[in-house]
């Protein structure tokens, strides 16, 4: 279908990567976004890129080291991560994770306290040890999102911002147009990668996509001296040292929300910043004096099993739906590739992604959110 029109609903990292992959294949792409590219979770996350739980993992790992060159714009990608244990229980858990990686042939190394401090000078001697992942890494979400958008434009793709999608036109079992308040965009295929708004959009096509939205929070400090290894996780928080030196960290309790078709009404942060600060000061005690200069929140959606939904529907059969279930940034080089394959070839060329089919939720109980306790606070 080279040369045809694909409309992508949602200019987050998943939709933009898909658009870039499609444009690379010579497809005419239009990305519609309700506001500005990467404005929601795609620009608010921790930037991690080490998702060994995913069928997209190998492709993620293959692509990240090449992304700056492929896109033509810097993503700030850095390789490697370290997991630092701050309690005996965490040390047991992290060694369990290390054993698992070894079993799966993901290169890891156990570090003693001294080795941890060499890699992460802001760590203290209060840790139990660390696990150095010789794979994975992290990048700057905001810069990466813009890099996808610009690279897509450089290949002739269009990005229409400030244009929420209001509905679809259908004919003959296909979507033939995507509507915004001001225009209808004719299309041969559609990718719906609109995050928490996917259920509302897909309901218009008579397709039930079970997703629940929640809010999560992060904090960031002023810059610290650059550490040899900036991708530091552990103590049940995740984050990274930016290339500027700031420590950006998240984790902890989330709050389930109802999100309507317009997207999150607001993204307020809460005093959870204090609990993040406590854990970061414990994880990196030599950073405890650093000023926290911002906190923020983002809204992400999860599927009932927490795994992505990447699927080309049977009806309408020219629609690909893509939700990364709250873990989308790092996998984006690979998710975009998979979506491209589904749109053009009807199947993923590099991995079996049957696990991510929407049909796994056929027959899901109506009260699946209530059963999981994933309901907004009344």
């Amino acid at each position: 279908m080279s040369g045809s029109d694909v409309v992508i609903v949602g200019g987050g990292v998943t939709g933009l990567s898909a658009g870039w992959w499609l444009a690379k294949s010579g497809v005419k792409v239009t990305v519609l976004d309700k506001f500005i590219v990467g404005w929601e979770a795609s620009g608010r996350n921790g930037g991690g890129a080490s998702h060994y739980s995913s069928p997209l993992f190998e492709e993620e790992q293959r692509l990240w080291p090449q992304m700056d060159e492929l896109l033509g714009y810097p993503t700030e990608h850095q390789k490697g991560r370290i997991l630092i244990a701050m309690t005996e229980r965490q040390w047991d858990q992290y060694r369990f994770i290390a054993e698992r990686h070894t079993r799966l042939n993901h290169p890891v190394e156990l570090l003693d306290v001294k080795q941890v401090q060499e890699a992460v000078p802001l760590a203290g001697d209060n840790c139990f040890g660390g696990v150095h992942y010789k794979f994975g890494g992290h990048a700057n979400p905001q810069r990466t999102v813009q890099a996808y958008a610009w690279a897509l434009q450089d290949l002739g793709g269009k990005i229409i911002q400030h244009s929420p999608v209001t509905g679809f036109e259908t004919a003959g079992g296909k979507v033939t147009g995507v509507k915004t308040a001001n225009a209808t965009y004719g299309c041969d295929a559609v990718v719906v990668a609109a995050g928490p708004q996917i259920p509302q959009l897909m309901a218009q096509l008579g397709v039930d996509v079970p997703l629940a939205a929640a809010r999560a929070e992060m904090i960031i400090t002023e810059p610290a001296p650059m550490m040899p290894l900036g991708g530091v996780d552990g103590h049940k928080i995740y984050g990274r040292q930016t290339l500027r030196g700031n420590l950006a960290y998240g984790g902890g309790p989330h709050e389930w929300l109802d999100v309507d078709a317009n997207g999150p009404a607001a993204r307020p942060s809460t005093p959870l910043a204090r609990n993040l600060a406590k854990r970061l000061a414990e994880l990196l005690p030599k950073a405890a004096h650093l000023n926290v200069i911002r906190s923020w929140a983002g809204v992400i959606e999860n599927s009932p099993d927490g795994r992505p939904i990447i699927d080309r529907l049977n009806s309408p059969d020219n629609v690909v739906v893509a939700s990364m279930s709250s873990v989308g940034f790092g996998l984006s080089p690979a998710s975009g590739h998979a979506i491209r394959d589904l749109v053009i070839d009807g199947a993923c060329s590099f991995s079996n992604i049957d696990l991510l089919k929407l049909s796994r939720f056929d027959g899901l109980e109506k009260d699946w959110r209530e059963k999981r306790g994933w309901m907004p606070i009344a």
Partner: protein
Amino acid sequence: MDLNFTGIDVCAVNGTRSAPEAKYDLVVIGAGPSGITAAIEGAASGASVLLVDENPVSGALMGNDTPLYFGGRMTAATQNKDRMLEAIFMSMPDLEKAMEAGVELLLGTTAWGVYRNGPGVQSLPEQVVGLADAERSWLVGFDRIVLATGARDLAIAFPGWNQPGVMGAAALQMLLSRYGAFSGRRIVVLGTHDLALETALLALEHGLDVAALVEVRDAPQGDAALLEKITAAGIPTYYGQSIAASKGGLDGIESITLTDGTNIACDTVCVAIGLVPSIELVDAMHGPRALNAARGGYIPAGEPNVTAVGLCAGLPDTGFDHVAYRMDWVRAALRVNAPDTIICQCEEVTLADLIGIQPPNYLPRPAALQARSLGTLLDDGPANPDQIKRLTRSGMGVCQGRRCRDQVAMMLAIESDKPFGTIPLATHRAPVRPLPLKILAEWDEPAGMDAAWDVWFGIPTQWVPVEDIGTPYQDEHREMLYTGMYT
């Protein structure tokens, strides 16, 4: 994996938050004249009242131009907290009255966030204000809050403005009137509106040399009687001018050159072009606000239980269009400033990189990136300061954008040929003052917090490696790494 749901997500925030340490009928933020009055009135009506003020702030914060634009012109006296406290009481006799009226007073205490339930958050047990002193942070509940946070200095870049001795009018007034801790001797004042005239006269009263007033417009802008005093004092005023160049040394600024070539020796340049109402807390709490050019910028729009008073509610409305006046200064700055003039001091973002939407110097600039600019970004939609921040890092530093956010917004308006009011306000986020991790940390958090804490959502199937699905490793994984959501 057999999943038996309990109906409860133990990793959700529900019920894990700590209660505030104390609760007051009224919390007043800012112990200036308006805040003190509000606190005394509240106490007189029988309310329990807490009055907090961040001053005296630490020397380190003052050095980062927080909360005002001090420009490194503080004397060593500002390192002595006891002396500073005494100075505050000396300069604010009504503080004693407030305490006599039953107001609880906390100086050296920062209000760094206000939190309440609303769109996107319903998990807060009650509305709280986050406070911090030099030792710790804590939360305080309230029924009503009065924001008397004053106004902060507007900074506008000129060549060499990123050196000691370039400061704001509110900072200079505070150092002179309250602390007697200003280290400069010879001052050039930018502006001729009332703020500039009052500041120049105050400097004269304190025996300082006022070398000149510089006005970008062709005529004086402020009150005629004040201007007369300036003239009577023999202070030269230059109209239709801005600073084209400056010279400095180790101690900071030594002289400036105006656009007409006039050279003026000085050790301090006081940017007295305008004050911006300090609405950080309002914005960070998603409170309503409105642009009011006659009152100095964005001001709180008011809510039933959130009241702004004093300069926080807006500068006195004299009919003067502050925004138009500031825009004239920024237009002149855009004409005069060289491309390598630093606009964001914290992140060292130059004018060229700001307008070029280029990344910081530690990143490569491939050809495709160099071809991008504010112009190409504007083709995709209206300018948004938060997007510019993400790309250039302007406003992302430890001064939290206090020195550059306003001028960057004005530059975006000018460069995109749009009215200032169409440019969104760059967001303010808690903590609205830089707070060390160890101070912000809730060290004595409730046990429920750690029990609910997972690195992500605590969904056991989310992180099981694909290879392990359907194998015994899957259950081992759940047993080892997860608790609670499923039985």
